[in-house]
């Protein structure tokens, strides 16, 4: 099983992501953004976290035009599974594989901490190892994580069960962390093969890190 992890100038979570997937038993290739194609045996593409192109103009706005993203678009449109974490989520919204956009956090701070998340919909390959309303503890680290979508778009997300994760407290009550519309932390596309989230599941895979709640998420695509 091959996981392809993309790397842009300014990406900084590619090795954490590689470490996490290798620990789970997958073979990982790191793919340079100037490549035009993905390895043919790719079973999952991960657009990892970081600061591609220094977040210039808007987070993810320049990376989306990299040659490799054309291959990722084609891969996703053919049903291939794509996971965008943090800056990867931003890139996937910029390219239009996921709806909405990520704005500057409401309090204008870079927020870096462990955060509780509630599983809103587990009926998808990404979260199928959890149950609805499960509460996870997974780190966030972002300045532009304030998810925005208009009312019509939000209705559509709800109707199609595309809202996957929301920020909550340890009892599952929604909390406002960065200003995201209805506290959204992660969504998927309509076909449920493209996933994006601001939290970092690859940073919650060993007890020594404080949580192992991210493991089932990273394994999800293989079900």
């Amino acid at each position, binding site marked *: 099983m091959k996981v392809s992890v993309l790397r842009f100038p300014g990406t900084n979570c590619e090795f954490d992501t590689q470490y996490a997937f290798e620990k789970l038993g997958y073979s990982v290739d790191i793919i340079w953004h100037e490549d035009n194609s993905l390895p043919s045996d790719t079973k999952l593409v991960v657009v990892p976290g970081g600061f591609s192109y220094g977040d210039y103009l808007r987070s993810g706005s320049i990376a989306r*035009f990299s040659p490799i993203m054309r291959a990722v678009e084609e891969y996703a449109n053919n049903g291939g599974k794509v996971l965008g974490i943090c800056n990867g989520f931003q890139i996937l919204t910029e390219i239009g594989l996921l709806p909405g956009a990520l704005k500057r956090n409401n309090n204008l701070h870079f927020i870096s901490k462990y955060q509780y998340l509630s599983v809103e919909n587990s009926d998808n390959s990404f979260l199928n190892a959890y149950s609805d309303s499960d509460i996870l503890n997974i780190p966030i680290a972002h300045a532009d994580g304030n998810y925005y979508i208009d009312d019509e778009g939000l209705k559509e997300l709800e109707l199609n069960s595309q809202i996957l994760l929301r920020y909550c407290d340890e009892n599952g009550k929604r909390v406002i962390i960065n*200003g995201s519309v209805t506290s959204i932390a992660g969504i998927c596309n309509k076909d449920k093969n493209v996933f994006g989230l601001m939290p970092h599941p690859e940073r919650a895979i060993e007890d020594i890190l404080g949580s192992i709640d991210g493991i089932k998420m990273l394994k999800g695509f293989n079900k």
Partner: protein
Amino acid sequence: MNVIVNVYLKNGVLDPQGKATHHALDSLGFDGVIEDVRIGKQIILKLSSDNEADAKIEVEKMCETLLANTVIEDYSIEITK
């Protein structure tokens, strides 16, 4: 030809930087004067073309593809010669 592109968050999309700046101005004694503060960015392009109409079409394309994210942002284009 110089072209100035202003990009700013759409009306109705909360602008956290504008809000914080508004608050700061209020606390500096400008309260009661300001109704709203919006923060955007300005992109200044120097184009080789002299044809305003063509330039406007080109720059509009640039805004739609890269310079603005039209999900959350509006833009304006000003040609200054």
